[in-house]
């Protein structure tokens, strides 16, 4: 499911994706399809075999009209007829954090060499794709971006990782204990320590 296109980047691994609006697509994405923790994929280049894999870490709402104290020449209802592109400037932007890449079916949890370009379409990843991304060559559970994310000075990272682990847990029943250790450590850092 395509949810939008890249409109800006904050860094090599952090991108802003504008979610498709009314005038851009008939089949608009629902809010739960670009929710916090949703896995997405981006192809840096049409011909590239590499697909970047990222996760929605933040949501921003755009509304240029908010805070504008100038006089209105026409009402909102008239604007739909007279200036529909003006209305299109309001919208939703999601912050995507790139976690790794997939090439030839092999997942790589590290900063990818390639970056996505402006206008790169962003597509959600289904459950099978998520499971495949979290498997090493021997089919064992892998979450190699865990330390990289934890190292970020970002208050939502712990919650993001917890939500990812909870989502992955049913897919790896044989490694539930390992996932539990990671989850518990994270919960301690994210929930207990800040409250102490």
């Amino acid at each position, binding site marked *: 499911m395509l949810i939008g296109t890249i409109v800006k980047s904050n860094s090599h691994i952090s991108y802003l994706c504008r979610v498709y609006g009314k005038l851009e697509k008939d089949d608009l994405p629902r809010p739960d399809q670009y929710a916090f923790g949703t896995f997405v994929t981006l192809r840096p280049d049409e011909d590239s075999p590499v697909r970047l894999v990222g996760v929605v870490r933040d949501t921003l709402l755009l509304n240029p009209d908010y805070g504008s104290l100038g006089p209105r020449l026409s009402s909102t209802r008239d604007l739909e007829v007279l200036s529909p592109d003006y209305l299109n400037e309001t919208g939703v932007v999601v912050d995507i954090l790139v976690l790794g890449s997939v090439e030839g079916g092999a997942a790589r*949890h590290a900063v990818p060499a390639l970056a996505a370009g402006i206008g790169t379409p962003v597509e959600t990843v289904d459950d099978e794709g998520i499971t495949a991304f979290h498997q090493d060559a021997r089919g*064992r*559970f*892998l*979450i*190699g*971006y*865990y*330390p990289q994310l934890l190292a970020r000075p970002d208050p939502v990272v712990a919650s993001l990782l917890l939500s990812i682990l909870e989502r992955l847990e049913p897919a790896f029943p044989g*490694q539930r*204990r*390992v*996932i*539990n*250790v*990671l989850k*518990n*450590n994270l919960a*301690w850092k994210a929930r207990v320590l800040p409250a102490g």
Partner: protein
Amino acid sequence: MEYTKVGTAKGPGDHAHEFLLITPDDDGNCKIGEFVFYTLDAGDSRRNVLGRITRRSPVRLFPDSFMASPEVTPAEVAAAIGYVDDEDELFEVAVTVMGHYDPRLSAFVNPRVLPRSGSPVYLAPSEMLSEVLSKRTVAQRGSAYVGWLLSRGQEDVPVALDVNEFTSTHLSIIAGTGSGKSYLAGVTVEELMKPYNKGCVLIADPHGEYDTLVEMPNKPEFVENGYRPRVKIFRPDQVKVKMSNLGLADLRHLLTTLGERMDWILTEAFNRVQNKMGSAYDGSWTLADLIREVEEVGQEQIDKGADYSSSVYGLVWRLKQRFEHSKSFDDNEHLDLNALFQPGQCTVLQLNEIDQRDQEVIVATLLRRLLYARMGTQKGEIPETDERYIPYPVFVLLEEAHHFAPASGDAVSTPILKQVLSEGRKFGVGVGLISQRPGKLDGDVLSQCMTHFIMRIVNPIDQNSIASAVESVGRDLLDELPALSKGQVVIAGASLNTPVIAQTRTRLTKHGGLSIDAAEEWGRYFADRERRERDSAVVDIRTRRNQLYRDE
């Protein structure tokens, strides 16, 4: 030769002769006490500089949180977050440099140059260690093969002590109870009695646990070219000390609670009986002679108007009570020195069943006679026909040495023991002290021993006594003492080129000091009692058989 690399030199350690190395130590080679080496250029050749690992600490460990579940290994957690490597841990290992072995000096020479940072450090091969750690080789004349290097395989690196060193500059065997000190002493005696040593050994055995050494003459390992060691066991009732061999201090020690006046009378009487009969070592005064002198001294005082009668009476009573029916002290009998000490002979004096104070006097007297006999023999003052003529060095092993030289200093044997330890080397009298309580052993006595066998010691007081009295053992080895198992021993001092941790070899004769299997003994006694009761019940039925029907 291809050597095994164990790590990479990091840089200097805490002191001048220490360096640090970094190692993942996957094979577990970097144990404390293990030997490693680095190479140094020496002109046109390379020198292998040996060192001993003294400390090891982790520098990279899994976080504690990875060990949150006993069901999950930290390596599994690390693998889940993308760390897959067999070399999980890294250690910083401190190595104290011993030096390169110089065969001309038969010693290690410290080059005073530490390895360069980044240079490889190798595990010292067993062949190298076999050549340089021990001063002797196994079965060489003057060697005592007591075990092998603990960090290596069985008998890979034999530890062969220099017999000449420990029989002249003395030996101590310090160990907690049940850690194998009597066993190790037995091994040492076996080595002394081997055909390549033909030692002259006496054991003071307060527990009667060395009589199993009588097996030695029947073991093929001890027999060679007509040599077969002799083992003489003196039972407690055969251990005799002649009255005239006792010194004034011995008498005072045996006659406890003497009053001031009694002590004066005894001193006077003792001096007179000594002067009348000559020296204590060739005179032969008896108990009756001493009592007579006591009475004469008393009479002289009475004649002068002083009333000494009650003191004389008390002293005579004490002398008679102590010596008249004593099994250990005799007017005429004693152990001839040349019967006790012969090359190729191991003499065991069993002192069990003998009162502690008597034991001290017996040992003190024996050591005194022995030292003076060796002095006299060396100076040519004792004729060959004399029982005191001993023209060869001797070695005396004292079990429970803290009884004979206690730290409290109240044993009559302490002064002579100290004299033997300080002067014995010149006259060929070596002493081996065995104790389970070094904290209770006189510090001077322990520090006079130049070779030390130290086994498992847990008591911190005992550990501190060893640390203060034994210079040759480093703190790193002392720290290992509580962790040693039965039969494992730290050997340090003059008989080896460097301190080692060794495993005691198996004894050839049976060990006599085994712990009692209490449950086994109880079970056997219970079975015997049941059998006796069953047997007596049969007899009862038989004797009552005729009454059986009548009663009913």
